[in-house]
């Protein structure tokens, strides 16, 4: 299962709710304002680290660049994907759930 999140974690609790529902082996892709959830030095760094054993995290590169962020700002082991990678994730997973 692929989960996508597009809201800032500081504004909405989509990430928290998504993590409550995501099962082991799931993938979570951060897009749009949700990319801020991937940044170091925030309360979300630890939340993501605590789930990395069971869940694979991805972030959309163009949305990072638009916000002045790059690999150096990210919590470790989050994979940056481009639009093709986004499509591949959707294709590789039987189902996609969007947390708005």
């Amino acid at each position, binding site marked *: 299962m692929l989960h996508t999140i597009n809201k800032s974690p*500081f504004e909405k609790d989509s990430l928290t709710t998504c993590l409550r529902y995501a099962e082991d082996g799931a993938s979570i892709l951060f897009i*749009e304002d949700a990319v*801020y959830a991937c940044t170091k030095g925030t309360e979300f760094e630890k939340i993501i680290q605590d789930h990395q054993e069971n869940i694979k995290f991805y972030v959309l590169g163009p949305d990072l660049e*638009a*916000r002045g*962020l790059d690999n150096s700002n990210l919590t470790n082991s989050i994979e940056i994907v481009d639009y093709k990678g986004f499509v591949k994730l959707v294709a590789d997973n039987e189902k996609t759930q969007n947390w708005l």
Partner: protein
Amino acid sequence: MEEQELESGKIRKFIYVNRKAPHGTIYAHEALEVVLIAAAFEQDVSLAFIDDGVYQLKKGQNTDGIATKNFSKTFGALDMYDVEKLYVEKESLDARGLSEEDLSVDVEILPASDLKKLFNESEVFFNF
């Protein structure tokens, strides 16, 4: 008549409170447009950035990949409109792992307790 009133009108203290991240919604971009209008009427303009609003000032934004206008560059041109009072809340920066070096323009970083005083002294509020 109206023009005369504007010309002789009192200069008011305008405060723009920016609390939204850029790009995900239109708020940040629209706020900037409205700031420029007030500046054109030679009002006393201050901008405050709190919560996700601090992300508007993050250095190195490049919107080529999402095909939208990179309005973050406009912040660097605000001084040409005599808009020079930009305040950023320290608590919001800290919560986001950001510091002054991460910002694209010169700002004054203040704790919420000081920003509160600025709000108390302001006369006209625009909240985005």
